[in-house]
């Protein structure tokens, strides 16, 4: 009898303690949600204020007269502000897309080789590629600037694409290798017994199975190139070539009081990558799980 009572009490106590953890977790998540979201909400609210409304103390929590004027100004090809912004946007899109395509073309065979073949120097090369992640842009900045100047690529988008390739590449190879490791070799063997060439087996069997990994790799390359700042800041000086991060900075360093315009530009710069990431994040988290963690 007494033991039963004790057990019941023990269970009650245990349940209470677990609830305590759960509630702690919820309160913590609310705190993190505020920390994460409030700055972004404040960006959006500021972007629909007039320049005058933004410069008030205490601030207007919600603008008296919300206006989309900042967005209209940035997206209007008729005025100089809009022309610049749209050109920066296009430049970023071009550089990021080119980087993404090249990254996939270079990373897929390399990752496949690292996963399937055991050639001499394989481990050394694999870690040498990974080590790239260790080094800051600044170490390479001076010599690459000199190199790009020598081969005449300063002030061209090619200099950026070539450089950005190496950011994405190590993680891309790493993630994809994890994917290929998880695809049974027997599938390819079966295809080859059925008469497929090695290339056909790769294209028809391995590629579709590793599509999530390739998508994750592509997202990672695209986001990295879209957000890159320091090389673009150093390699490009002509106004019509700048990418968005540098363009926005050059643009607003002359006109820092236009915070609504700056917030609108920051918002529009974030939209493509955030949308891309949210639509495809499933693949990304899965790629990290399979490539980086279980492996």
């Amino acid at each position, binding site marked *: 009898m007494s033991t039963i009572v004790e057990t019941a009490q023990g269970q009650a106590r245990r349940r209470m303690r677990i609830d305590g953890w759960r509630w702690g977790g919820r309160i913590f998540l609310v705190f993190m949600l505020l920390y994460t979201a409030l700055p972004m909400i404040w960006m959006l609210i*500021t972007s629909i204020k007039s320049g005058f409304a933004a410069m008030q103390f205490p601030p207007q929590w919600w603008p008296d007269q919300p206006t989309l004027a900042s967005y209209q100004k940035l997206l209007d090809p008729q005025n100089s502000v809009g022309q610049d912004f749209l050109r920066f946007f296009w430049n970023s899109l071009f550089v990021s897309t080119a980087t993404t395509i090249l990254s996939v073309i270079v990373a897929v065979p390399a990752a496949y*080789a690292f996963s399937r073949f055991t050639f001499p120097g394989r481990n050394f090369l694999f870690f040498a590629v990974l080590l790239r992640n260790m080094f800051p842009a600044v170490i390479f900045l001076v010599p690459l600037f000199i190199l790009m100047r020598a081969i005449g690529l300063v002030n061209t988008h090619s200099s950026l694409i070539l450089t950005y390739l190496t950011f994405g590449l190590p993680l891309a190879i790493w993630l994809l290798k994890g994917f290929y490791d998880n695809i049974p070799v027997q599938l390819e063997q079966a295809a080859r017994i059925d008469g497929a060439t090695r290339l056909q087996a790769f294209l028809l069997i391995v590629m579709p199975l590793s599509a999530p990994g390739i998508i994750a790799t592509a997202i990672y390359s695209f986001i990295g190139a879209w*957000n890159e*700042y320091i090389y673009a800041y150093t390699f490009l000086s002509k106004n019509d070539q700048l990418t968005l991060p540098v363009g926005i900075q050059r643009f607003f360093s002359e006109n820092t009081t236009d915070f609504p315009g700056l917030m609108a530009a920051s918002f529009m710069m974030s939209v493509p990558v*955030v949308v891309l990431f949210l639509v495809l994040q499933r693949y990304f988290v899965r790629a990290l799980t399979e490539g980086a963690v279980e492996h």
Partner: protein
Amino acid sequence: MTILTGKAEVPRRLRPHRSGVLRKVWEHRADYAYVLPAIAVMLIVIAYPIYYTIELSFFNTPPGLQLRDKIFVGLDNYTAILKSPVFWTVTSNTLIWTAGSTFIAFVLGFACALALHRDFAGRAILRAILIIPWVISAVAASYIWKWIYHSDFGIIGSVLVGLGLSDRPPNFIDSVSTVLPSLIVVNIWREFPFAMIMMMAGLQTVPDQLLRAAKVDGANAWQRFWHVTFPHLRNVSTVTVLLLAVANFNSFIIPWIMTGGGPSNASHIWITHIYELAFGRQRWGVASAYSVLLFLILMSLGYFYVRALSGNDQKDGSQ
């Protein structure tokens, strides 16, 4: 087509190999074709610059980067760095910045991963919102927070004044004593989601049976975490912390855009200082010497990184 010649399926050990390394390399020549593009890109953009930085660190170059007129100065650039009082300011800033950002971002990210591990309504949306700061550009983040910290119209200052906690809005990033912590808050905002994703991925690999067994044995939630979950995540944690530490050590955008290293060097870290030496003051030799020192520090961190990674491999017995 080289792709047709791979021999991956035949275990290498079964084939006779009496020959030397070169013969082996030759036998595998088709395999190298796959990695050649990757290696070529890395050589041009990494190996050559490293070599060039080391060379340049022993020279003085006149302003304007007139490389034909560079003068050999031996180790002068290195001694100049160690004698400079700025060096110690910048180094201590870098340590505070790196250690503070890494530790807090990891703890917050890990805690979010644990809190999000159990399913509940709205979990997917919450997770997506928490990841967004990591995806948006650091340039946008810098401007958003610069506006939040603004000394006249910033929202945090207004709230503090409104609550009667402060007479006037504090100068978060214009004052020597508060600038570094204020920037660290921004940096953590951008980086904790990365730790969260990594640890969420790691949590999925913790075997449920182990946790249930521990529960049956009477372990409470904290004990289950500390004795079962956490040890299981040791490798992921190591890799995550190292990646965060390296990324923080190498950050540039947030300090550069928000303060440019000021006021009076209080937010200069190594990277921003090197950039200013090279592209601001045109002291390419000193900047290169700084880069070489940085390189050596990162190589030692890289050693642990590789060890952590190969530790993963050996554990699985897959390599």
